[in-house]
């Protein structure tokens, strides 16, 4: 457990530091969302109608941004080889790094989303649901994305490849995430959507460490 926390702590220090991707990711997210009113026009009805989708799509893209560096820098300087030798199973190492990735991208992005929702005229009752849905959905983005990041370790054009591999696989997160917010803004219950997001997360949490660890082992051979 202490080894797990040590890896999380190390990646967090790297992520929050000047070299870290956290601020860039967050800026990209805010910028991408604020482009939409400029693109579709400032009418409040239109913005309110598309707010949930815009925020979710921007979150999906923002989560992809820093993924290709998730394991690559550690592979380049040899850290990954040492981590693979650690007493901790490789799946848990991967999980620790993925958790750190979520804490530096998914979490701050979810926390700033309510602000953007207000800018996009989203219905007040839907905003807490948006926050809950993002908090439940973005960890899945990090987990599935980490599979893509590990598979493309050492690949040509890895940075472009990760979104190409990952985005089709996270479509359920987008659908249920937007579904929850829309249900809430129509005054319906968002429960089923949130439960499905949770189920997807539970499945990803259980299965993806095996895929990530398998892919990292390949890269280290």
């Amino acid at each position, binding site marked *: 457990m202490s080894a797990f926390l040590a890896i999380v702590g190390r990646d967090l220090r790297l992520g929050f530091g000047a070299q870290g991707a956290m601020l860039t990711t967050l800026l990209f997210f805010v910028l991408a969302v604020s482009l939409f009113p400029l693109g579709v026009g400032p009418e409040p009805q239109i913005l309110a109608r598309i707010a949930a989708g815009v925020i979710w799509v921007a979150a999906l893209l923002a989560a992809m941004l820093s993924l290709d560096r998730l394991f690559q820098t550690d592979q380049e300087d040899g850290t990954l080889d040492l981590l693979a030798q650690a007493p901790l199973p490789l799946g848990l190492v991967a999980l620790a790094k993925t958790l750190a990735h979520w804490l530096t991208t998914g979490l701050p992005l979810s926390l700033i989303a309510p602000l953007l929702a207000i800018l996009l005229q989203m219905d007040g009752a839907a905003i807490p649901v948006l926050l809950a849905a993002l908090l439940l959905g973005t960890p899945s983005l990090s987990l*599935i994305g980490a*599979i893509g990041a590990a*598979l*493309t370790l*050492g*690949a*040509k*054009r*890895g940075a472009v*490849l990760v979104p*190409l*591999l990952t*985005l*089709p*696989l996270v*479509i*359920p997160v987008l*659908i*249920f995430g937007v*579904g929850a917010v*829309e249900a809430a803004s129509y005054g319906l219950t968002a429960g089923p959507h949130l439960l*499905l997001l949770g189920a*997807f997360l539970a*499945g990803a949490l259980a*299965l*993806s460490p095996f*895929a990530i660890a*398998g*892919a990292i082992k*390949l*890269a280290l*051979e």
Partner: protein
Amino acid sequence: MFHALANPARFLRLMAVIRPWAAGVAIVGLAAGLGWGLLYSPPDYQQGETVRIMYIHVPAAWMGMFIYAAMAVASATALIWRHPVAELVAKASAPVGAVFTLICLLTGALWGKPMWGAWWVWDARLTSMLILFFIYLGYMALWEAFDDPARAGRAAAILALVGAVNLPIIKFSVDWWNTMHQPASVLTLAGPKIHPDILWPLLITALGAKGYYVWLLTLRVRAEILSRQARILRFAAATDRRAD
């Protein structure tokens, strides 16, 4: 039997035996099924002659899904038993599956124009096929992204399995999304029961398409094995030259 097929030379001999039969099934099945379907089957009472697009559209959709399933099984075999030929079967299948999926999408668009009045409708089935197409493209891109075919093969195998786990979830979520956003689609194959005059040519075409896939597979896997051998020979020649 299973492990015996891990020997590429033996696998090539088996492929050579299967090839003419698969070619026969493909030619006879596609000619008979499409001939019957396109020329002699009755037009639909609602859709008229456009229903004939179905004889290409539906078998292509089935093949797109069937080939992904075959790829996933081959990838699992490659990962679990380190079966070298299974990996090549998966690699050789991907472009065939992608093209069948693309045919399904294109004929779907052609069918959508007269039926729905639009080239593209975000119908649950069309959307699922579009995502399947993207997953095929990602799989093929991953194969091309590495210089070392052994590394590429196993990374692609993991991706194929992740996709196989995820595809039913994507299918379910797209169906859910579609019922949220859009009323039930107008496309019904003349009710739940299909008339035998339409069903038989459809099934025969589907069988022909399966034969066509196996035929192509025997050719493509042979090409893969030969190009691997050529690569090894080239490396050996280069090493010899350096040794001289």
